[in-house]
């Protein structure tokens, strides 16, 4: 057994730094490269792509990422674990296989493909069997949106990834695995943790939570003493150096920028946190109130004390559905009286939409520069009202595409026929966007069967 296993986080979401995977693989010793591509909204985007082309539906950035780390995988035995498969893990695996063959290293790549999370084709069967897939937050039954469902995926845990690793896969591709399982699985595999070793599994999950958002734990988006964080242009992505006893150190490669400190790790720990006593995953319920952090050295934070409890008998299901259309238009008003001008433009625009008989489910006006991010907390006691400029940001949402489309034609005219001192319309008409909304539900664990294939 290895004494220390190093899992490096190289991607925090689909769209993260293209350089990070290679920097993690080449910048120093690592055993595993963990790449997290999936957010709630990503699955639905991928599903739309798959509808258009059945060979799509996975995170295509992953192919470039693998190309950039092939030498480390082939020559140094670094293994890659990623949920890049999206709604089509087999197609993702085929693309990686093709890449490996074209680079002449096909014989050195074993791809583990995890499937079984995709429930789209089973929804009616599940409902017929009494699984209501009701919305976890509102309690509404799925039937209210059944005909608009685009994708449905269960969040699956570490077990199939562990199986792929034990069958010698050096690239493991999953669909909707939990982000944290991608980090916990290799630790469970290497240290032989059992499926009921709750404290150790919880430690692996929390290591995953810390590194799953890339540099957000190593100096990126860090509010604490932010001016002093060095060399963000070359920010180091995080590495979890884990031991069999469930303790680990968060660090980053030498010579990189950013900072790993108790405050930087603490900020990431509370990110997207619900009830800290029960961080529920398919594998274990982790207790964030048991975490102990200690600065062990420069850019090294030791994490210990973590406890976990048995997992539940449910899996969370992420369902995406079509939910109408939206568009957001902006115009910039300049000093003097920038805010007042923008406010008048808002009033004029609302009146015109009314006269046109356009009705929307929702209209939201924001004044960027005055109150867009902090709302009344900023506008109640403003530090100044003498703004150099204010951006009017006007959004509408509704089920009638034509109405939203018509709204997009009402922004530009304001430049000539509305309040004065207006600019910043060069981007043209706002784009109409179809909204894909998210419906969280629960399903019995027993109905989801995962499968591992080696390609």
């Amino acid at each position, binding site marked *: 057994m290895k004494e220390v296993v190093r899992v490096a986080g190289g991607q925090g979401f689909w769209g993260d730094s293209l350089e990070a995977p290679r920097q993690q693989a080449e910048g120093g010793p690592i055993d595993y490269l963990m790449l997290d591509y999936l957010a709630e909204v990503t699955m639905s985007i991928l599903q739309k792509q798959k509808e258009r082309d059945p060979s799509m539906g996975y995170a295509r950035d992953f192919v470039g990422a693998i190309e950039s780390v092939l030498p480390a995988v082939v020559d140094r035995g670094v293994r890659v674990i990623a949920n890049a498969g999206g709604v089509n893990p087999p197609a993702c695996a085929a693309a990686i296989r093709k890449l490996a063959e074209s680079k002449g290293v096909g014989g050195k790549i074993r791809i583990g493909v995890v499937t079984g999370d995709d429930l789209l084709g089973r929804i009616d069967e599940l409902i017929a069997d009494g699984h209501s897939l009701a919305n976890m937050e509102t309690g509404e039954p799925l039937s209210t949106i059944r005909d608009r469902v685009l994708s449905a995926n269960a969040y699956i845990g570490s077990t199939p990834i562990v199986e792929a690793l034990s069958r010698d896969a050096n690239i493991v591709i999953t669909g909707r695995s939990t982000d944290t399982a991608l980090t916990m699985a290799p630790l469970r595999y290497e240290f032989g943790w059992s499926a009921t070793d709750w404290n150790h599994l919880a430690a692996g999950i929390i290591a995953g939570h810390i590194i799953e958002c890339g540099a957000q734990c190593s100096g990126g988006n860090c509010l604490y003493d932010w001016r002093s964080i060095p060399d963000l242009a070359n920010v180091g992505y995080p590495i979890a150096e884990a031991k069999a006893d469930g303790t680990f150190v968060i660090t980053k490669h030498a010579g990189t920028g950013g900072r790993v400190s108790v405050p930087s790790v603490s900020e990431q720990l509370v*990110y997207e946190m619900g009830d800290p006593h029960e961080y529920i995953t398919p594998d274990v319920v982790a207790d964030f109130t048991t975490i102990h952090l200690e600065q062990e050295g420069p850019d090294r934070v030791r994490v210990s004390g973590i406890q976990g409890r048995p997992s539940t008998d449910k899996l969370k299901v992420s369902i995406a559905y079509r*939910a109408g259309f939206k568009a957001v238009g902006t115009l910039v008003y300049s000093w003097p009286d920038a805010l007042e001008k923008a406010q008048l433009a808002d009033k004029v625009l609302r009146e015109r939409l009314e006269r046109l008989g356009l009705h929307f489910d929702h209209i939201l006006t924001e004044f*960027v520069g005055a109150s867009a*991010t902090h709302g*009344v907390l900023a506008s109640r006691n403003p530090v100044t009202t003498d703004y150099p400029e204010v951006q009017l940001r006007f959004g509408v949402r509704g089920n009638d595409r034509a109405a939203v489309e018509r709204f997009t034609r009402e922004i530009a005219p304001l430049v000539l026929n509305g309040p004065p001192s207006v600019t910043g319309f060069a981007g043209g008409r706002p784009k109409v966007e179809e909204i894909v909304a*998210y419906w969280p539900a629960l399903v019995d664990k027993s109905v989801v069967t995962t499968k591992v294939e080696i390609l």
Partner: protein
Amino acid sequence: MNVRLLDIAHARSGDKGDTANVGLIALKPKWYPILERYVTRDAVAEHFKGSIDGPVVRFELPNLNALNFLLHGALDGGGTLSLKTDAQGKVFSTALLRMVISVPDDEARKSSLPSSDAQK
């Protein structure tokens, strides 16, 4: 003595559906009890009045010198439905740091809290 949270805490926020969460972390471990005592659920609900539609829930993480607040109905529907600039609640963190708490003078002195009275 009035104390601005910005001077005694840092924070990070994120989203889950239409709920924003704000993790509030004491800048010094000795200031955590101050946060626990004065940054109550009700005080935070009052602070965000007019900005959020739902209730506030508070959790304590003394091991991280942190409090976690859930602000329900904060994100104009949340996720892709939201029309807000901050649809994912990324800067509710700094919005909470605007909050000013009132701490009795001797307790504030004992904890060497920085006063915000001069700034007002």
